[in-house]
């Protein structure tokens, strides 16, 4: 019954992050996300057999049962470290955003601590509660976002989009790598498949979530480019900036608090999902019985990682553009692929023995 809410959400979550694409793709950057679901479709094609064969196990558990405790556990640990690391980066982005836009004089640590409190609470309450929260937040967020986009249309000049495909398709393809990396975070959802009430629907849910996400992303960057022209590459949070210039009837001067609310709640869900995945995969790879004792230390670890891993926003942008698109898919695709190969190999060898 529960959990069907999550996928959609996690989708919207990813949405705001990069106007980075514009740097690579220029004015055609908005097309890049439309290609991103391809990577998920590939992933689903890979994971589909796994879920059909082992509907009640995550791919880490599959890897463990096929490759043995140690190798499988190692893979799980790598995945878990990736999840923790990614989460720390998200937390860092989140803190930078809040500090940079609304709470300029508040220490970033306090900002992060507050949201982590919520995350810890929901992580201890369990996946079902998280799914329910998501079910409440998603429609609200979608409504707010639509408001912003619709109001933003007034400010945008669609001539900015012309000429389309000036430099051919190559920059678009290169730019598409970036959203692909983000969208591939959705692999976390694949991790949650076994907890769905109908695990077999997992692949379909994942694909639709990724398409939804990409559409959001495309619309978001479209409106950003249309409003600011090619300079959008210089605006770190483009949609936020769009919200900033909206002015309706001399009364609704600034609607960016709406966006901040969307951002905070989306990030809350996102960090929580990641935290869940990180602690749960750690639990599985260590073979522990309880997940709860990992929640608070994990959160503390993230807080430290978020502060220590990167020095500045500039460095982060650089990292996100150059390292991330390679690092993340390596883990998100690599581990399921290994699990799949191991699973197939095991199935094949068993088949030949039988």
């Amino acid at each position, binding site marked *: 019954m529960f959990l069907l*809410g999550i996928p959609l959400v996690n989708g919207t979550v990813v949405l705001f992050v990069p106007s980075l694409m514009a740097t690579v793709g220029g004015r055609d950057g908005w097309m890049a996300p439309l290609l991103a679901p391809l990577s998920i479709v590939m992933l689903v094609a890979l994971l589909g057999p796994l879920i059909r064969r082992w509907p009640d196990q995550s791919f880490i558990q599959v890897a463990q049962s096929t490759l043995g405790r140690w190798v499988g556990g190692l893979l799980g640990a790598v995945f878990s470290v990736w999840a923790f690391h990614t989460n720390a980066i998200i937390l860092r982005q989140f803190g930078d955003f809040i500090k940079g836009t609304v709470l300029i004089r508040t220490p970033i640590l306090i900002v992060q601590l507050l949201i982590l409190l919520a995350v810890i609470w929901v992580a201890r309450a369990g996946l079902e509660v998280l799914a329910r*929260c998501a079910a409440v937040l998603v429609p609200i967020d979608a409504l707010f976002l639509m408001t912003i986009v619709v109001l933003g249309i007034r400010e945008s000049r669609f001539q900015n989009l012309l000429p389309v495909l000036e430099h051919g398709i190559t920059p678009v393809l290169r730019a598409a790598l970036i959203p692909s990396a983000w969208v591939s975070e959705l692999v976390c959802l694949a991790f949650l498949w076994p907890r769905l009430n109908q695990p077999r629907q997992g692949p379909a849910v994942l694909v639709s979530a990724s398409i939804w996400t990409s559409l959001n992303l495309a619309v978001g960057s479209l409106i950003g480019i249309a409003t600011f022209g090619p300079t959008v590459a210089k605006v770190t949070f483009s949609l936020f900036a769009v919200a900033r210039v909206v002015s309706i009837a001399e009364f609704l001067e600034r609607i960016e*608090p709406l966006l901040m609310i969307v951002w905070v709640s989306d990030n809350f869900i996102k960090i929580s999902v990641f935290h869940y995945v990180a602690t749960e995969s750690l639990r599985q790879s260590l073979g522990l019985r309880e997940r709860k004792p990992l929640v608070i230390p994990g959160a503390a670890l993230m807080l430290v990682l978020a502060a220590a891993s990167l020095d500045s926003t500039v460095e982060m942008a650089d990292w996100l553009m150059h390292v991330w698109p390679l690092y993340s898919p390596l883990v998100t695709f690599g581990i399921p692929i290994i699990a799949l190969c191991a699973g197939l190999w095991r199935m094949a060898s068993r088949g030949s023995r039988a």
Partner: protein
Amino acid sequence: MVMNKDLHTLSMANEPWNGEPLDTVLQANLTRLREVFDACPDLIIREFLLPDGRRGGVLYVNGLIDVDRLDRDLLHPLVAAPPRPPQWEHGMPAPGLPLPGGQLLGRMGEVVQKILDGVVVLLLDGETAAQAFGIPGGKARNITEPVTERSLRGPKEGFVEDLQTNLSLLRRIIKTPRLKVEEGLAGRLTRTNIALVYIQGLVRPGVLDEVRSRLGRIQIDGVLDSGYLEEFIEDHPYSLFPQILDTQRPDVVAAHLLEGRFAILCAGSPNALLAPIQLWSFLQSVEDYYERYLISSLLRILRFSFAAVSVLLPALYVSVIAFHHELIPTALVMTVARAREGVPFPAVVEALLMEVAFEALREAGIRLPASIGPTVSIVGALIIGEAAVRAGIVSAPAVIIVSTTGIASFVIPRIGAVNAVRMLRFLMLLFAGAFGLYGITIMSLFVLIHLASMRSFGAPYLSPWTTLRLWEWLDLFIRAPRWIERRRITVAAAGGPLRQGPHLKPGRASDRDGNKQD
């Protein structure tokens, strides 16, 4: 442990006389009962002589029975009857008594119990059993419209303190043998009658087992109102939010029973408890269902928005003043800034002061006699408020915000939800004062997590929103026309999927048949 033991000795089951059998000699029984009821002048013992020369006695508590009927229907026929000994065996004391047959009581404990329950007990010389006759009487409040839940349209009946009357009010609305009533006792000394009411086949059996076991666990001295029970059976004792709906209207209880919930009625209390309940029920009024659906839906939306206003407005004011001037139009900023010029407090303190003052005024107003209530509100709100603004202690915008918030909270129809909102408002205010809009968002997330993890007797508290049963949204923020809502609300209920027939939408007969002829 000591307290537990103490409680134990006070309960009737442990009194030394509880298990004693009755004596055949009337005087021995009466003496024993006089000892038990020592210093209870409201126990009346009337002795009389039967025509056959035996002695008899009736015992009852003054004011609980109808004395005229006792004389006319019991004592007079007994005393005047032809000299034929009453026959105990068939439960008929004597032929010709115009009273329903009484129950036989063999032990002292039962006799004492019956007397206290407001029943007349008849003892006769030479008999080892007493007999109980229900001749209820005494004073009771009339059925009136409940003051706290008025409605313009719809029934005007309200529950009273008498349990049997309340049950009969329900039975008058729902005429099916599937309306079940399970009776029980709570409170060792008050021995309060409570009744668990539900419609068999609609309520989920698991829920019933759960509530039975929760009610069975209660061990206290006294139950004076259903509120006592509520605290023992709710799921989340530390929550700000009410998890059980209380109402004084039989029609509300009936409506919820028909949606598969159960009700708990408690003798001595006009408040019935309803569960499992969802958050939204506290924002829905009975009248939504009696008025036409358009205005009901609009009013519901109004109520939901004002509930939000009532939680968030002071917090938003504080965060805008203290953190985000840029969010409101420049002209407005100037006006507010001018008004706040010279106010010695930061916005948080100002808002907190005013909110506390408002709560104090409200509390003072509730218990005052109607004659001086208005005086307090005039002195409090108008004179002090005006003077405080003039003196520059608080700003006029703060007063406006606080009074708007106050009005907004009165829009919420249920007092339980109003109280939750009142407490929540202060939490929001503190977070807004510390972290601005971000604080409000985080606080809202906290509240959301809390609400999402709550259940009322197994049913998710935020259902049907969080359970994604979209058709049930038809009766959530709006009230869809009745002829659309065919499907049964399944949060609490078992039973078939449909609750009404097809094609109920008013219109031409040809449309209803589905074969349109143009």
